[in-house]
């Protein structure tokens, strides 16, 4: 049949084309940009409603919501210990309650909400959330989990209505919602104190808003509801981005759709230029400025709440830290003198503190094999250096004060190891184009390679003109020039040392000696000198935007530094993107001892494998349609039908693609749950493809097929439900569920290694990814 159709010349089409009357053809052949010409555009794109009959839609939605809430709260408090990344996100929530400053790779909104949920259930922020530790009785962890669960269960009605808005049948939308509800993985991850349920919810919300907005764009552009839904979309993508940067992918989806809209309207010559301009302006306001505002607001909230010094201080500029309560920077003596003990912070965004430790450069990494000098982001005694004169005899006497001035030549002694900051014409370990910096020698042996000249580049506070300028703590930005080589002490540019350097930032001597490069600039962060008076609470300038940019850059750098480290991460926790759609991996969310309660993060095979197959089938369907179009077979009743098909395909495929493909180019360590947002879009496409193909089989069969798929999802979920609600006793009881050999439900041998190593396993610092 298809074969003969393909052979038909246009002449043969004259009578009928694929059963469609010929009259349908001209409408299809109209130029794309004609939707404004429709006589009654409103009527066409409404969700099909059965008039004069019982409207089942809200009841189904309600039922689905109730069911999904039930699945998400059932036996919620059963695990009375810290499960998996609760160790991170529970801890971060505590910091908000304690108001102490911390640093994390994710934007703050999600964690702020978790903190709020903690506050709501009366948590005081005192529990350290160590992995696998039992919750204290006074901490209502179930309440905090319930918050995530409830948010997560809202994905289900969202999915349902998204299906309807994409013009799927009610049964197909129910199928979609059932998949979202009963996918074992989406369900598991929504039940703990994690960011994922928030992220997934905002992703689903963004997708829903986008679809609704698109329907208004087709029928009543620039109407009030059109504006409202665009604003909703903007807020929603802003929230998504403020929870995790993965939100950028959904922004890309919305952005591409927006560009397409604008492109289509550009071809509409009948549209007045003013109207077209308005389309641009409104979109810029609602889809760029509004999300940006949400994102910035989440940081404003972050900085406002966290006003006390905490463990994340060192990621920020020294001036930011000076404004946190509880640190002693304001006690720094102002001007640096010889003999002062100081810590020195790099001026690049997210720069660390000049650091050295007893470990040496390993053979092969550099020529010298001398002591390592790095930049480190945490406060540590190894960050402390003492300012010394070039010759020992020039040092001031015990009680004498000799200030350090611009242009002075100094030596810097590492306080812990007594080695001196040293550089020499040997190639740096990572940046081969520059000279290595090391810790070497001692005070009594004069070595010209230990000498550094202090050059002031900028000073935050006024100093008298013409006078020799002093080096002041916090406010003076200076460069350290190596006297013999002329190069500048440098760090930054996110070049980290390999494992032997503990992934700390590389420090080298920059041959280009460019004082405009912020990586070449340093400031004194902490300053101790018993002879000098404390500086007092001097007014250090504070700037939200500076802190905002600093923090974002630091997050970016920390994110890039999360590279796979086989020695720290068990292989079973991390995974590779190509394993996800074919369900090659599951993830143990906690210790795996026989007597422990266990949770296994694994998809529902019908949903995962089915959605992957659906992507392939959809590609095949598109290919067939394209070839048939090229042979003018006329498969579409009208342009709108084609447009709806393409739009649903775009949301599904593009959404999946944009949320999945970038992981292939990311260097960072990856986990199974990174696939979940992509999965949501694959689920949409799955329901759509089944609906689209089943529709051709007639009404009854259409319903039967969809019900069968739905039943399949439910049946498989029942099989796997123990993975979600907790497995008690030896994991071998679930051996029959090891459908694929790579799922590590159990280790294959009874009395497994997991028991012995469980301490390291339970959420072994998965980097809170």
């Amino acid at each position, binding site marked *: 049949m298809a074969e003969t159709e393909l052979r038909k010349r246009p002449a043969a089409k004259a009578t009928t084309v694929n059963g469609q009357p010929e009259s349908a053809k001209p409408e299809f052949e109209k130029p794309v940009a004609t939707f404004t010409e429709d006589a009654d555009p409103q009527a066409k794109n409404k969700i099909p409603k059965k008039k004069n009959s019982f409207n089942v839609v809200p009841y189904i939605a309600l039922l689905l919501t109730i069911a999904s809430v039930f699945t998400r709260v059932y036996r919620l408090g059963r695990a009375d210990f810290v499960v998996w990344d609760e160790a991170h996100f529970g801890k971060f929530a505590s910091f908000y309650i304690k108001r102490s400053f911390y640093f994390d790779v994710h934007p703050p909104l999600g964690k702020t909400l978790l903190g709020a949920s903690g506050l709501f259930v009366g948590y005081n922020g005192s529990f350290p959330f160590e992995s696998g530790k039992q919750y204290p009785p006074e901490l209502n962890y179930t309440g905090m989990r319930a918050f995530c669960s409830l948010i997560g269960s809202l994905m289900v009605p969202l999915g349902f209505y998204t299906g309807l808005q994409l013009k799927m049948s009610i049964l197909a939308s129910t199928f979609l919602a059932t998949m979202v509800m009963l996918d074992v993985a989406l369900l598991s991850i929504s039940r703990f104190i994690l960011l994922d349920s928030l992220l997934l919810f905002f992703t689903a919300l963004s997708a829903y808003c986008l679809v609704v907005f698109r329907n208004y764009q087709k029928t009543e552009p620039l109407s009030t509801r059109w504006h409202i839904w665009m604003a909703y979309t903007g807020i929603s993508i802003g929230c998504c981005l403020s929870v995790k940067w993965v939100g950028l992918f959904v922004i890309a989806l919305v952005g591409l759709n927006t560009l397409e809209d604008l*492109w289509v309207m550009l071809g509409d*010559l009948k549209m007045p230029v003013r109207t077209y301009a308005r389309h641009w302006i409104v979109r810029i306001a609602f889809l760029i400025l509004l999300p940006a505002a949400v994102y910035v607001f989440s940081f404003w909230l972050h900085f406002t709440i966290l006003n006390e010094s905490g463990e994340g201080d060192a990621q920020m500029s020294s001036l930011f830290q000076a404004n946190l309560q509880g640190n002693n920077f304001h006690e720094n003596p102002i001007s640096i003198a010889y003999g002062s003990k100081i810590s020195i912070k790099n001026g690049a965004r997210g720069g660390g503190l000049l650091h050295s430790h007893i470990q040496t450069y390993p053979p092969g990494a550099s020529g010298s094999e001398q002591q390592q000098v790095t930049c480190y982001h945490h406060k540590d005694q190894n960050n402390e250096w003492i300012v010394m004169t070039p010759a020992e005899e020039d040092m001031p006497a015990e009680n004498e004060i000799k200030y350090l001035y611009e242009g002075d030549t100094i030596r810097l002694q590492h306080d812990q190891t007594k080695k001196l900051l040293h550089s020499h014409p040997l190639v740096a370990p990572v940046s081969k184009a520059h000279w290595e910096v090391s810790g070497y020698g001692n005070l009594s042996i004069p070595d010209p390679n230990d000498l550094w000249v202090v050059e002031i580049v900028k000073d935050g506070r006024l100093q008298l003109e013409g006078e020799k300028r002093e080096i002041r703590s916090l406010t003076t930005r200076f460069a350290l020039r190596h006297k013999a080589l002329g190069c500048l002490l440098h760090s930054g540019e996110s070049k980290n040392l390999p494992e032997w350097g503990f992934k700390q930032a590389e420090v080298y001597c920059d041959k280009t000696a460019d004082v405009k490069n912020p990586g070449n600039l340093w400031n004194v962060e902490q300053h101790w000198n018993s002879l000098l008076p404390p500086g007092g609470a001097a007014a250090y300038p504070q700037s939200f935007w500076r802190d905002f940019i600093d923090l974002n850059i630091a997050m970016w750098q920390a994110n890039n530094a999360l590279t796979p480290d086989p*020695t720290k991460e068990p292989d079973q926790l991390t995974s590779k993107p190509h394993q996800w759609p074919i369900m090659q991996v599951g993830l143990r969310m906690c210790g795996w001892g026989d007597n422990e309660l266990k949770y296994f993060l694994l998809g529902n095979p019908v949903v995962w494998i089915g959605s992957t197959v659906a992507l392939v089938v959809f590609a095949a369907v598109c290919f067939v349609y394209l070839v048939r179009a090229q042979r003018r077979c006329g498969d579409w009743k009208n342009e709108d039908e084609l447009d709806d098909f393409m739009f649903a395909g775009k949301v599904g495929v593009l959404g999946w693609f944009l949320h999945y493909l970038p992981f292939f180019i990311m260097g960072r360590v990856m986990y199974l749950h990174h696939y979940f947002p992509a999965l949501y879009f694959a689920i949409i496409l799955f329901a759509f493809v089944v609906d689209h193909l089943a529709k051709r089989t007639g009404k009854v069969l259409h319903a039967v097929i969809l019900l069968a798929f739905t039943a399949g999802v439910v049946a498989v979920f029942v099989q796997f439900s123990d993975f979600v609600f907790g497995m008690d006793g030896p994991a071998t009881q679930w051996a029959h569920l090891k459908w694929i050999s790579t799922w590590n439900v159990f280790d294959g*041998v009874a009395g497994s290694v997991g028991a012995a190593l469980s301490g390291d396993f339970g959420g072994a610092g998965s980097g809170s990814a």
Partner: protein
Amino acid sequence: MSEVRKRKGGKEREKDADEPVSPVPQSPEKAKAPEKLAPAAELSRKEKPVVKPLEELIADAQEKQEQWSNTWTVGLVFVSLLAFLTRMYRIQDPGKVVFDEVHFGKFASFYLRGEYYFDVHPPLGKLLLAGTAALAGYDGHYLFDEIGDDYVVNKVPFVSMRLFPALCGSLIIPFCYLTLKELGVSYVAALFGAFMLIFDNALIAQSRLILLDSMLLLFGVMSIYTWIKFYKTRMSPFSFQWWFWMSMTGVSLALTLGVKMVGLFTIAVVGIAVLFDLWRLLDIDRGLSMTQFYKHFAARALCLIVLPITLYLSFFYIHFALLPYSGPGDAFMTPKFQATLMGSEMFTKSVAVPYSSIATIKHRDQGILLHSHDAKYPLRYENGHVSSEGQQVTGYEHPDGNNYWEIIPVDAAKYPEAPEFKADAMELKRDVRYLRHNDIVQLLHSVSLSFLLTHDVASPLTNTNMEMTTVPRDKADERYEETLWRVVVQGGKDGDRVRTKSSLVKFVNVKHNVCVHPNKLTLPEWGFNQVEINGEKNLEHKSNWWAFDDIRHTTIVNGTDIFEPPVDASKKPRGHMPFLAKFFELQAKMFEANAGLTSEHPYSSTPGSWPFVVRGISFWENKEGLRQIYLLGNPFIWWFSITAVGVYVGIWTVDRIVLRRQVDLLGFSLRRWFDRSIGFLFLAWLLHWIPFFLMGRMLFLHHYLPSFIFSTMLATALLDFIFRLSNERSPSTLTGGNAALAARVPYFVWMRTSLFGNILYTAVLVGLMGSFLWCFAFFSPISYGYGLPSVEAVRERKWFKSWDLQHA
């Protein structure tokens, strides 16, 4: 402005696109969709008389084309000669090993010796180099050990070896010139384009040495040229010419891929063009029946898929045929492969492993030996972990008595689940039992007399893997199961004997189901900086493989089994592998090794920096005479080319946006030329560049050269396009300002109205060329390596800090 404001449905435009552009002119009525155009044309005709009817213009153009064919030939000869001269000039200088000659010269030597080597590139380029060397009478005695070694001292016919790449490098130019001609640019522009390529310092430096790139570039531009020639014959399908050019395209693609894997990008360019072409053939308005379409499809599959694959495989066939002997590349291959090489230890030294023998166990990738010594793990490690304080088991690279382990069979009395012991009649007769695939054994350290064991303690450097230690013989019984190891042979079948060297085995602990596995890291001082050995839970980990190496047993004398006949090393090897199995193995290893080239090289660079001449590669240097060869593009030409690419993207974007508003600036036929000619070059440029951004391996400036050639051709065509569009011979002037008619003037009409364009245009080209020539001359000392008079002269050429010239 020649605006053509007309409403046209997408369908109609589609139809235009399918109108054949044949050199045989069609009457305007027939050629175009007449319904809407004709009235417009007639209307304008009334307003303004047309200078010449379209038919005449076309006839004129064709006539002129014939008249000028001799002129084009003269140009071809001229640019070819110049190309030869620039590439051959002082080719004998320096008579030293320069840069990657160290590799490719060496590989050529291996072909002449017949010794197996391994390289990440396919064999064709190196085969050709070896071929020229053989013609020059070279026997492969020298292995190109280090950059700077003297050729004359080592008696290598290096000039002859350099001649071939230089020849290929020269032939690039005529092919580019002809490609430009086929694309329809003017004579003067084609000369200009060829000149840019002749006088580019990077192409020269890269072509004059024993390197693969000039061949790669030549075959790449040949592929593009032959494809264009084929595309032009598409109006007479299945003619001799059509078949010829299509199969030549297939051959060129295979040659390109045969030199370097970069050829895949060329294949992608042609592949996209083929799909585009097929897609349009499928269009029902083209009038092809499905049967005809399938014929087209099959013809392309034959010439562009089957033919290239066959050729590509044949290169490997020759490769294997020429390398019958064991050589430095053995270690990269599986034991099965190695066993096919004459003189390989895999069959001369391989013996079956008997029980109770004492053997060393060597790791396949790291070459370390399983080792234990009289030292304990410290109770507490630096990372806070606690150890078992058991005896250390490490990986050690040097021969040592502590590397020997005795192979002891499992005792069924202590481990009832042990598989039944197999022995054939021969073994019973000789009273020797051989180790077999899936046997369970204990490994007894022959110095400390303790058994290898693993247990539930984290290894020193990891959280996840188990500690590997030993237990003294007298205490072993309590922990019997933990000392049992299942010996699994790679690809083994039940009953297979384990052989030394040639059988890859992994040792799986019976109790804990972990493999003996070396960490990448070395232990701290307490472990004497030896490699950590631990128990890896992932049994499929790719570095779980070991092989028994040196073996001691009463039945083994001088490394041969007394029961087995001695092997004659000069005879045909015992191993056999079908050609395709060899091919797939080598291909997989090549990809693996290529991806593994991740270390940093002082002269490696990032793809984003290439088009802008940010830095080059120091090939060779000699302090005396301040000589050096530094690979650096002619900055003026490179900047000019990349600017042109930007301008192209700009014009394209503006045109598309304006067209969306139904304002047609170019006219249909001009836009088609713009898209298909310049657009094709743009695609070629893009696809030879962008993929490098995704590669993790270290990259060098010369990886950009294929892209550079396409960008230069793009620059030429674009310049021609802009000047001709703005001068009096643009289509609208040809038709007397009749925009509608101008839109239908085929490109070859307006492109062929003159040889030189106008004076202004020629002057601009000559001016540009002058500056390019000056720049070429200025940098030629560092491209040819003939030295500079003073350090100042070197510094003068160091325009940017990032150009790390030597002696500056």
